[in-house]
């Protein structure tokens, strides 16, 4: 394909970026239990970050760079192995190690003393390797391989504390739900291959690729392929109703949750959709928008009623992923990626801060020998007195999540919602529902993030242990936990993404991705929407302050609606009853069928054979053996008779001899 010589250094840099975590993984896998420090993993990921930055500088705003080598030939089709670098890849390639480095450093303190820490570093490196590989590869088959690896690594990490029953259930669930998505991805690959005969991303989706030349392609197949790929992304990026694995995935270590939610696992789905965006036609995109909106709404509602600090964050991730899906669905995947990037930083920070809080609550639990859930918001309160820095950082991240001005979340969320409005205004009244719902979700987001902050850090402590204890075990996290959080906190602010804090239109990311929008920009919205959002946000935060910080909660926490929201509208129970029990029922039926029909047939056949063999055995023992035995018995009997002659008495011998002679004589005489 393209001549590779001028870019040789770039190629090696890409390979090194991807393979450094793999090397760390292999090294630690070989070292086993003795590799506890995590230094190989941290070194590898920092190396990846530096190389990725170099690559990004080289690739940014250049034409896409494509390396390709033949891999294997199957019949007439040759499969290629290769690397495709463009602005999207460059962005993500920097983002992943940039999020992973603070998480790694944070983990050195957070996971300190864990019995399985050698496994932790190993899995973490594998996870980073899989995600980095997913970003750079140039065809769908390789992408699928790395996609599976990401899923597998997350499975290992979610079930990291495998002695807990709930962790085992959670990673099984994550794996199974992701299988559904993988099936979608695989079907998508099959459709693409049968229609185009190639899986190469560059050949398919570049500006004059196969997809743009083929207008006779059956639109049904195109829609089917688009939806199949979207199902893949739905499972990975936790879209309703395949989101159920993500809240349960909180069973993993908090640092892992932050990585899954920020840069690696859930980002893979959005990245896939952006990478293969030209594939989606009008119908597929509409499905994506609707599912995204639905996800954003439901997850925001679920988040309102959660008490587990990590579950609130999990639902907020799902809700924000819904936003990104809407961004892809309206054709403005640049805003989706923009939101993915900003979201990665503040969500990572939120999780790390939550991890710090849980860490301290766990310490307190051990200190006072108490019996309470260290992740439950109802057990916290007033923590800002002991952890002011964590409180400030988490508050900052929450403001970014809520889309408050001067934060990165404001820029990306506004860009996304404005694009949605512009998209909807060209279509019709029904379509206006999507941006309207997104605004509602944004206000809900502000409310539940404020609820989280106020319940955890403000008000009076709810546990008795906080009163009258002189030397308190709850304190700020150590430097190796705090500094990564400070770094992420800085990344939550606007200057990293756009110099103008109130307008995303000048953001270097959006101009770098340069996605042609199918709808006209409406400038009036750029003032209207942000002001609406900020007003809504401020109002909801004020309400949350009244309700939670000042403890004037007016609602009944035990009402049916609240409980339903906490239980995700019973979707898990629904899944359990319909799918799990249904499949178990089918399995039982199949078992019965196997047991009684298939086995019955086999046993009937076996019985027949047994009967025939019994008959033949009888014939053998009685007829065949009988003949032989009879012959033998006859011989024995005869022999016995003749044996009598040999009695040792000389006279009888003589008689026999005489008799014979006498008979011989008689014969001679008479013959």
């Amino acid at each position, binding site marked *: 394909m393209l001549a590779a010589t001028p870019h040789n250094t770039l190629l090696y840099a890409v390979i090194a970026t991807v393979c450094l975590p793999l090397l760390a993984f292999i090294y630690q896998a070989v070292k086993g239990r003795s590799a506890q420090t995590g230094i190989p993993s941290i070194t590898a990921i920092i190396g990846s970050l530096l190389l990725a930055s170099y690559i990004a500088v080289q690739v940014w705003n250049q034409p896409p760079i494509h390396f390709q080598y033949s891999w294997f030939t199957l019949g007439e089709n040759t499969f290629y192995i290769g690397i495709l670098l463009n602005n999207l890849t460059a962005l993500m390639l920097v983002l992943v190690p940039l999020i992973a480095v603070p998480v790694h450093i944070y983990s050195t303190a957070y996971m300190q003393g864990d019995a399985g820490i050698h496994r932790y570093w190993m899995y973490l490196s594998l996870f980073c390797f899989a995600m980095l590989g997913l970003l750079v590869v140039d065809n769908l088959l390789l992408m699928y391989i790395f996609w599976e690896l990401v899923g597998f690594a997350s499975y290992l990490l979610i079930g990291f504390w495998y002695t807990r029953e709930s962790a085992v259930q959670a990673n099984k669930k994550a794996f199974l739900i992701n299988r559904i998505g993988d099936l979608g991805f695989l079907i998508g690959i099959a459709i693409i291959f049968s229609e185009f005969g190639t899986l190469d991303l560059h050949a398919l989706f570049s500006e004059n690729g196969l997809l743009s030349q083929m207008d006779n392609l059956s639109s049904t197949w195109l829609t089917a392929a688009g939806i199949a790929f979207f199902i893949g992304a739905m499972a990975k990026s936790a879209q309703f109703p395949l989101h159920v694995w993500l809240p349960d995935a909180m069973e993993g270590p908090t640092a892992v949750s932050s990585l899954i939610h920020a840069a690696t696992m859930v980002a893979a789905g959005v990245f896939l959709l952006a990478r293969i965006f030209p594939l989606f036609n009008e119908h597929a995109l509409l499905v994506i928008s609707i599912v995204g909106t639905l996800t954003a709404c439901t997850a925001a509602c679920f988040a309102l009623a959660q008490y587990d600090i990590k579950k609130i964050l999990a639902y907020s991730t799902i809700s924000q992923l819904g936003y990104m899906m809407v961004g892809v669905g309206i054709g403005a995947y640049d805003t989706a990626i923009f939101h993915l990037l900003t979201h990665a930083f503040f969500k990572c920070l939120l999780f790390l801060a939550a991890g710090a809080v849980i860490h301290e609550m766990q310490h307190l639990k051990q200190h006072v020998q108490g019996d309470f859930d260290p992740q439950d918001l109802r057990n916290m309160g007033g923590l800002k007195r002991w952890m002011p820095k964590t409180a400030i950082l988490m508050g900052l991240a929450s403001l970014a999540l809520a889309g408050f001005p001067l934060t990165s979340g404001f820029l990306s969320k506004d860009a996304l919602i404005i694009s949605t409005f512009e998209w909807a205004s060209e279509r019709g009244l029904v379509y206006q529902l999507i941006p309207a719902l997104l605004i509602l979700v944004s206000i809900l987001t502000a409310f539940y993030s404020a609820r989280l902050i106020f319940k955890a850090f403000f008000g009076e402590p709810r546990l008795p242990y906080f009163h009258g204890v002189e030397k308190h075990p709850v304190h700020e996290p150590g430097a190796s936990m705090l500094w990564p959080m400070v770094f992420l906190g800085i990344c939550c602010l606007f200057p990293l993404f756009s110099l103008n804090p109130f307008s995303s239109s000048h953001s270097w990311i959006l101009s770098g991705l340069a996605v042609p929008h199918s709808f006209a920009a409406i400038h009036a919205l750029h003032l209207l929407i942000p002001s609406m959002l900020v007003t809504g946000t401020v109002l909801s935060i004020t309400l949350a302050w009244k309700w939670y910080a000042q403890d004037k909660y007016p609602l009944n926490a035990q009402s049916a609606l609240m409980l339903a929201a906490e239980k995700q509208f019973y979707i898990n129970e629904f899944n359990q009853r319909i799918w799990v029990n249904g499949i178990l029922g089918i399995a039982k039926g199949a078992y019965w069928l196997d047991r009684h029909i298939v086995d019955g047939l086999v046993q009937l056949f076996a019985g027949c054979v047994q009967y025939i063999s019994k008959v033949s055995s009888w014939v053998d023992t009685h007829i065949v053996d009988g003949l032989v035995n009879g012959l033998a018995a006859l011989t024995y009997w005869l022999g016995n008779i003749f*044996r009598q002659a*040999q009695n*040792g*008495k*000389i*006279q009888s011998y003589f008689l026999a001899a*005489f008799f014979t002679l006498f008979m011989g004589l008689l014969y001679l005489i008479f013959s």
Partner: protein
Amino acid sequence: MISITHFLIVSACIFSLGIYAILAKRNAIMILVGIELIINAAILNFVAFGRYDKIHYGGQVFALFAMVLAAAAVAVGLAIILNVYRHYRTINPDQITDLKD
């Protein structure tokens, strides 16, 4: 007149007696006597048929040889019987069954 047939009849009778003695007696010496009777039956035949060889008297000569032979055989036989008696403490042939398989 006494023809050769009468000789042969007497000879056959003696022979039969000898056979009977060999087969039926419970004493080895009596069996030896039976053997002697058979030899004598044969000698009688030699002598009877000797009348047809009046030049050489082959029959009579052979009879003399046979008598000497019979005496020798009796001596040998008695010696064997003596040894058998020493060995088995009996000379009843029914009780000496070492030839059995």
